[in-house]
Every structure is written in C-alpha cells, then in structure tokens.
C-alpha cells in the first residue's frame, strides 16, 4: 500500500499542485464483474481507496414471484434462474426445504441421483469459476479447457432431463425423470476422463508463477472477518475455516460417502488470499469426483416418482433448510399458511453475503487486484440480486 501524499507539492511557477482521488465505475458492463455488478471504485492513481458495490441490475423479484404461484412445484423453475451456473443445487436446496416442511421421506434412489447431480453441478460451476478467473488474470487458454470439460457434464444433464442450463429436474418428493440406462457408465467414463484434467489445469494455471504472483497475498480475508460477514463455501474455507454443510449439517445421503473438506492453508502466501480460494475450488472438484464415484457404485434401484405428492398443502408453519451450493450456504426459508402456495419464501444466497465483504478486503489494492479479488469471490449476479 502506498502512502497518500498529504502535503501539497508546488509547481515551478509557484502554484500549489494537488492530487485528487478519482471515481471509477467498474461495471455494470465490464468483463471482470461477471455480469451486471457495478463497483464504484475510489482510486488514487492505481491504488483503490474505497469500493462501493452497487447491486440490483438483475433483480427479478424471485421471492415475490414465489408467493403467486399456483403450487409449490412451480417455484422450482424460478430457483433455477437464481444461480444460473449451478441450477441443480438451487433446486436441491428448495426441494429439501419443501420436503422438510411437508415431512416427506423420498426414496433412497432419488437421494443418490440428487447427490450425483449436485456434485456434477459443483464441478461444472467450479470449472466456470476457475476458467473465468483465469481470464480475469489474463490467461485465456485455461478457460477453454474448463469449458471443454464442463460441456461433458452438460451432456450428461441433457441426457437426463433434456436441458443444459435450467433443468427443472428435482421435484418436491422426487425427480422429473429417472436417469437413463446409459447414464451410469457415461458418468463413470466422465470421472475417469476428468481426474487427469484437474492436474493439467493446475499445472497450466494454479501453479503458474505469474498466476501465483497475482493471487497470493492479494485480497486476504481473515477467518474472523469471513465469519462476521457471513461468508460461506470456498470463500470461508479459503480462509482456513473447516466448515462444510455437507458434513457439518448433513442433508440427503452425504453421510454415506467418504470425502474430505478442503481448506486454505496459505501455501503460497497468507491464509485467506485469492490463491487459497482458488485452490479450494480446484481441490473440491477432486472431492466431488470421489463422491460421484462412490454414489455411482452404491446407487440402489427404485421408483423416483413414488413420493411425489399429488397435491401439496403443508400444514401452517415455517422451515429453514440449507445446503452447500458451489458458492456456499444456500438456504431457503419457507412460511406456509396451509394453502397450496407458499406464504413467503426467502432465499439466503451465498454469493450476496460473500460479495458484501469486498469492501473490507480490497482497500489498498491495485485496480488489477480488484479484478483478482472480484473473480475469487465467484459471484453470480442472478443469485446476488435474485
């Protein structure tokens, strides 16, 4: 951080010269803001003095819309559109909440398929995060490698439910379709194909000297600040906090699998810097592959439509359910008044809480670091604004 000169300089003609801070608008149309985020930067030369994020450019009244559906199932397509690079996990969170409200037990096969889909989605989402992060830092090639692999996951989704981005696949009490017969061999094939690619990606990007120089010790988020701001997911684990809802507040069938929670250790710099957040995502992809492989091996037979209720009328009451989305703790708070439509739905979006910390961690950084920090938070504006 450079010292800001407070005493005014004098020019050769004796006039007093002074420097001014400049306000720079980064976004809403800017390649590094990953959507329509506007960051109002107060800059002193290249040094960022203050950051004010402005959100709401993608606000679509998700929560209000949900109160006007004809039934609970109709909310699901809306949840898809929140975090549009990880639609499966959005649905997952909502159906878990709705099922807890209804007190339904879904067949084991459904749970397994949901876990497989959620983990595939996590890989796809982290691939986007890592690839676009590479672009932010200036490396274009890893981005296309990531998209090549993500394409294979989307093919699996397309094979299952026909959609590649917004699936409407998980329903309250079950799934829209069972997986096709050749899904399991294809998914196994993907796992075998993908594992060496993670190493390739790490060699090309993660351990690249320039990449490390650009991300290590940049945007350091200490664990206490992360907890105070309600950060979650890779953002929180990057700061060294060992917290993953899949293990610490188990839902679905995650307790049946063996896998590790990855945390940032400050290998290249300080704990909680941008590199730590990046490596947490890269390592989580390996863990997701492990979970998928186990789930594929253990998946039981059964009917995925068995528990889908004909009519959903939960008893008056409220529920809060949370799951670990690729971005962190995705929670749904649903209030029911006993009618067929939810009285109130509130989504607790991880990207929103993670973004709120940007001002705290980017003071004194350079403009180029701003890009690195914003990229490492991995925001999806659809979810921030809802």
């Amino acid at each position, binding site marked *: 951080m450079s010292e800001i000169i407070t005493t005014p300089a004098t020019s050769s003609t004796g006039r007093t010269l002074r420097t001014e801070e*400049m306000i*720079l608008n980064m976004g809403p149309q*800017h*390649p*590094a803001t990953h959507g329509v985020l506007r960051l109002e930067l107060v800059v002193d030369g*290249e040094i960022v003095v203050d950051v004010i994020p402005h959100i709401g450019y993608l606000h679509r009244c998700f929560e209000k819309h949900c109160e006007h559906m004809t039934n609970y199932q109709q909310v699901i397509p809306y949840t898809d559109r929140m975090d549009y690079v990880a639609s499966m996990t959005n649905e997952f969170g909502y159906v878990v909440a709705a099922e807890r409200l209804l007190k339904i037990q879904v067949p084991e096969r459904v749970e397994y398929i949901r876990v497989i889909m959620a983990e595939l989605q996590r890989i796809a989402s982290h691939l986007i995060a890592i690839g676009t992060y*590479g*672009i*932010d*830092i*200036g*490396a*274009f*090639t890893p981005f*296309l*490698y990531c998209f*090549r692999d993500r394409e294979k996951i989307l093919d699996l989704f397309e094979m299952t439910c026909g959609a590649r981005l917004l699936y409407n696949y998980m329903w309250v009490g079950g799934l829209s379709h069972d997986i096709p017969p050749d899904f399991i061999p294809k998914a196994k094939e993907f796992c075998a194909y993908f594992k060496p690619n993670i190493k390739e990606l790490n060699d*090309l*990007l993660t351990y*690249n000297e*320039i*990449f490390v*120089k*650009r991300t290590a010790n940049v945007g350091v988020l200490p664990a206490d600040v992360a907890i105070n701001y309600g950060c979650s997911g890779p953002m929180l684990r990057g700061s060294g906090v060992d917290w993953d809802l899949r293990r610490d507040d188990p839902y679905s069938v995650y307790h049946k699998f063996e896998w590790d929670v990855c945390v940032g250790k400050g290998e290249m710099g300080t704990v909680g810097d941008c590199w730590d957040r990046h490596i947490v995502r890269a390592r989580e992809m390996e863990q997701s592959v492990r979970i998928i492989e186990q789930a594929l091996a253990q998946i039981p037979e059964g009917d995925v439509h068995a528990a889908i209720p004909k009519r959903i009328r939960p008893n008056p009451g409220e529920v809060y359910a949370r799951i670990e989305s690729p971005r962190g703790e995705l929670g749904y708070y649903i209030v029911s008044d006993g009618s067929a439509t939810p009285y109130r739905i509130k989504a607790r979006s991880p990207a929103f809480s993670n973004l709120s910390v940007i001002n705290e961690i980017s003071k004194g950084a*350079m*403009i*180029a*670091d701003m*890009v690195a920090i914003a990229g490492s938070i991995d925001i999806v504006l659809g979810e921030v604004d809802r």
Partner: protein
Amino acid sequence: MEQFLTSLLGDTIWVHIIMGALPLVFILPYALVTIYLEMKIAAHMQDRLAYMRTGWHGTLQPFADILKLLQKEDTIPTAADKILFLLSPYIVFTGTYAAFAVLPFSKAYIGSDLNIGVFYIVAVSSLVVVGLLMAGWASNNKWSLFGALRSAAQIVSYEIPSAFAILAVIMITGTMSLNSISDFQSSGIQNWLIFGGPFPMGKKLLLFPFMLIMFVIYYVASMAEVNRTPFDIPEAESELVQGYNTEFSGMKFAMFYLSEYANLFVVSAIVTVLFFGGWASPFGTFMSGPGWDAFWFITKGMFFVCVNIWLRWTLPRLRVDQLMYVSWKVLTPFALFCVLAIGLIVVW
C-alpha cells in the same frame, strides 16, 4: 534496390515514393497471415478449430475482418479531443512504419542503410508512446487514460534493458548498421551472435552464455514493448476493457491493430538481426543470395512472431508493479552485468 530504381526512373521523387511504399507491400500480407496464424495457433492450443467457414479452413477470414472494419461506423466520442483523437492512430502507425526503413530484408534490399540503424529504431519506435498517450488522453475515458499511462510507463522502462542488449551487440560488431550486423554473422549458423559470433573457439564459448542472457532479456523486453501477454497491461481486456483503444472503431481501430502486428514483426526482426544472423543463411553460402536472404529473414522473423503468439496464449498477465519490478530489478541489473562482461571479453 535504390540504385536499381534510380537507374530505371532517374533521380526523381518517384524513387523515394516507391522505396517508401515498399514496406507496405510486406506489412499488409504479413498482417493478414499473422492474424490468421494467431487465431489458428491459439485455437489449436485451446483444443478448438477457430474459423473454418470462410474459404478453405477459414483462410479468407482476415479479409472478411478487414471488410467488416471498413464498413464500421467511424465514431468519435462527443467529449473527445477531436484533433488528437483523429491523429493518434496515424502517429502510432508512423512510429512503427518508420522502423521498417532500416530493416535489412536482404543484403540487396534495405530501405535505407543508415549507419546508425539500431539507434534509429530505438528512437523512432518511441514515437509509438506519444501516439498511445494521445489516444488515451483524447478518448476522455478513464479506462483509456489508465491504459495510456500504463503503456507509457511500460514502454519507457523496457526500452532500457532492450537498449543494453542492443549495446552488447554493437560492442561486438562495432557497427550500428543492421545490414553490417547481419553481414558480420554471415557464413553459417556457427557465426550467429547468439552462439558467440565469428570468433575463435575460446572467445565464442566465453561469449555464448552472456549472449544467451542478452537474447532472453531483449526478447522479454520486446514483448513488453509490443504490449503482448504477459505484458499486455495497457490493453488488459479483463481490467481496462482494451485500454487506450476502447473508444476507437472502424479503420482507426484497424490502424492500432495493424501497427501492433507490424511492431511485433519489427521487434522479431531486430531479434533476428541482433542474435540470429539477420538475412544470413544458416548454411553459409548454400541457399544464399538476394532472394534466399529475404526468405531467411522473413522465416526467422516469423519464427519469433510465432513464439510470441505461443507465449501470449499460455501465460497470465502481470500486475503493473510486478511489471516494473521485472524491468528495473531483474532485467536491467542483469543487462548491466552482461554489458560489462561482454565488454571485457571483447577487449580481451
């Protein structure tokens, strides 16, 4: 070449006009080929195909791109400084184009065999900085201004290590004329300055490591001078949204683009002349002669252009302060030391 034209046309202004226009005959096809090559190399590195539809394997795409740029509306932002805005692309291109005057394409063809050729290139290519600053300032866009200031700081700092590398070659060859430097290294690959030049074995072996370092220093510095990744900080698309050329469209943008590619060849050509024998054939007298000379010069130049493309699509981008660090704390001290060492070896 000049004598040939004079004998044909007499000592008229036409001789100078033709001599002045000749590099364009090279630059335009070269730019088309390089744009195509860059896209194709990048695509194959990234596991994709790049353009495949315009002509065989998309070979006509560069022409289509130029047609598109010609048709684009030529916008000038209302808040822009109009005169500077209109002038800047041409100043940038002039700076690059002027450097072609002293490039020895072949023993028989050199625009002007100045006895201070290298010095002239160092001087004239600094004109580019003025153009970039003008472009950034005139756009009246904060991002462009950032780009312009960054590029000025970058080019000025990297001229120092690159000038030192040039100095080392001048100490060895004793001439600043690019034609004479090439001539000095002719008669075979073993005489190239990167391998120690045409000296007895002992001296060659002593020179070789230092020349290798000098080559690396010059190459890194030249990448910074042409604003290519990992030094593309002035136009960093994900930070500065193309930097100084954000507000430019149509042919004005094309001029920036063209001069960037032309500049890429200039620095590659200088690398070729300084360290890799210039137009000299690697096999001594075999495959040499005016036509072959041009072939070798352009082949060697294109090789370094391709290396540059390869690096661009592999590496991330440095940060401004890290860029300055590389220049002042890594390249410059090493260059100074090498100049000292090479000087001692030459004197000895």
